[in-house]
């Protein structure tokens, strides 16, 4: 129910954004701005696609600053219901245009939540349902990941390179290996004093410290794996019927 309401709210804002983008294009094409002309264009935009979008019938909020605040019915409530964050798998199925619009919807939602947070700090009151902020941030991060994936795929097909900037693995003076991406310089490297001071090699006395670092990382990994195994054992002891189920599956 909460998920449906959340998705419903998202859909409402989403369709609102669709209309908004259509309206702005129209007004910029005309070359005039003003609230009256916007209204006129809004009416025009509604007439055409009605036969295509039967189930979308929303009105845009005229004053933009209202979008910095939640629905007035939610003011003063202790908790506000909201749906889950957008999953990467769900976002991978959406087109780039949809992701672009969703990004701006989420951005406005984030601005609204941040104003609410600041106002609650000023009024010394608890913010109603702060988990909404985390969900929005997670969704935006997922959109970013999906867009990055698509960029890499496109670049691979077009050029054959994964990364936008070429680079290579190099050592630093402490023996650590890291990815060095090439930078653009107006002069070659053998004339670059600052670059020549940087050391991309390590001296033999560093080997001892590399060994110590390796041992430390191995110990940490072993400790982490041990902890996980102990936790699993504790759970199995507490819920033996569940352990038997996993083994059989």
């Amino acid at each position, binding site marked *: 129910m909460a998920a449906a309401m959340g998705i419903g709210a998202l859909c409402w804002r989403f369709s609102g954004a669709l209309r908004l983008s259509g309206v702005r294009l129209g007004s910029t094409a005309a070359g005039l701005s003003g609230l009256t002309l916007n209204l006129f264009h809004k009416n025009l935009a509604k007439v055409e696609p009605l036969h295509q979008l039967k189930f979308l019938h929303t009105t845009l909020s005229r004053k933009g600053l209202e979008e910095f605040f939640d629905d007035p019915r939610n*003011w*003063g409530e202790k908790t506000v219901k909201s749906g889950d964050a957008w999953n990467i798998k769900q976002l991978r199925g959406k087109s780039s245009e949809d992701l672009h619009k969703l990004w701006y919807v989420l951005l406005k939602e984030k601005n609204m939540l941040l104003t609410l947070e600041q106002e609650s700090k000023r009024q010394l009151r608890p913010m109603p349902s702060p988990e909404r902020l985390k969900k929005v941030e997670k969704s935006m991060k997922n959109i970013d990941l999906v867009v990055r994936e698509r960029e890499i795929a496109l670049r691979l097909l077009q050029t054959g390179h994964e990364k936008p900037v070429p680079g290579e693995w190099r050592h630093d003076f402490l023996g650590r290996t890291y990815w060095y991406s090439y930078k653009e310089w107006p002069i070659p490297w053998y004339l670059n004093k600052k670059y020549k001071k940087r050391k991309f090699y390590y001296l033999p006395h560093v080997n001892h410290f590399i060994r110590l670092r390796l041992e430390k990382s191995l110990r940490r990994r072993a400790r982490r794996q041990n902890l996980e195994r102990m936790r699993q054992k504790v759970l199995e002891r507490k819920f033996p019927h569940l352990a038997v189920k996993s083994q059989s599956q």
Partner: protein
Amino acid sequence: MTKVDIKNYLEKIYNVPVAAVRTRIQYGANNKRNHRNQRVKKPDYKVAYVQLGQGQTFQFPNLFPEKEQDTETRSFDDFRSKYMEREKQRQKGDPRRGGVPDWFGL
């Protein structure tokens, strides 16, 4: 975000006509000290004063209006007030001795 950035942001994303934007950077104080006597800084932040265009006015709304308490909170408040009264009664001394605490005298 610069003044131009803020103007474009509000105009393009929120469709709000902006006449002028002025900005300043608010310095966050560095006077508080933690348990190790190290100074703890509050972060600096930028404040933007936006003048709306086309004769628009804006009043910051009250986001926490007083609402009717539901039965749960009301009963909890009743329970809490009754508990506090009981605690105060217990702490008061014997009324036959004039409300003096018990650890006085015999």
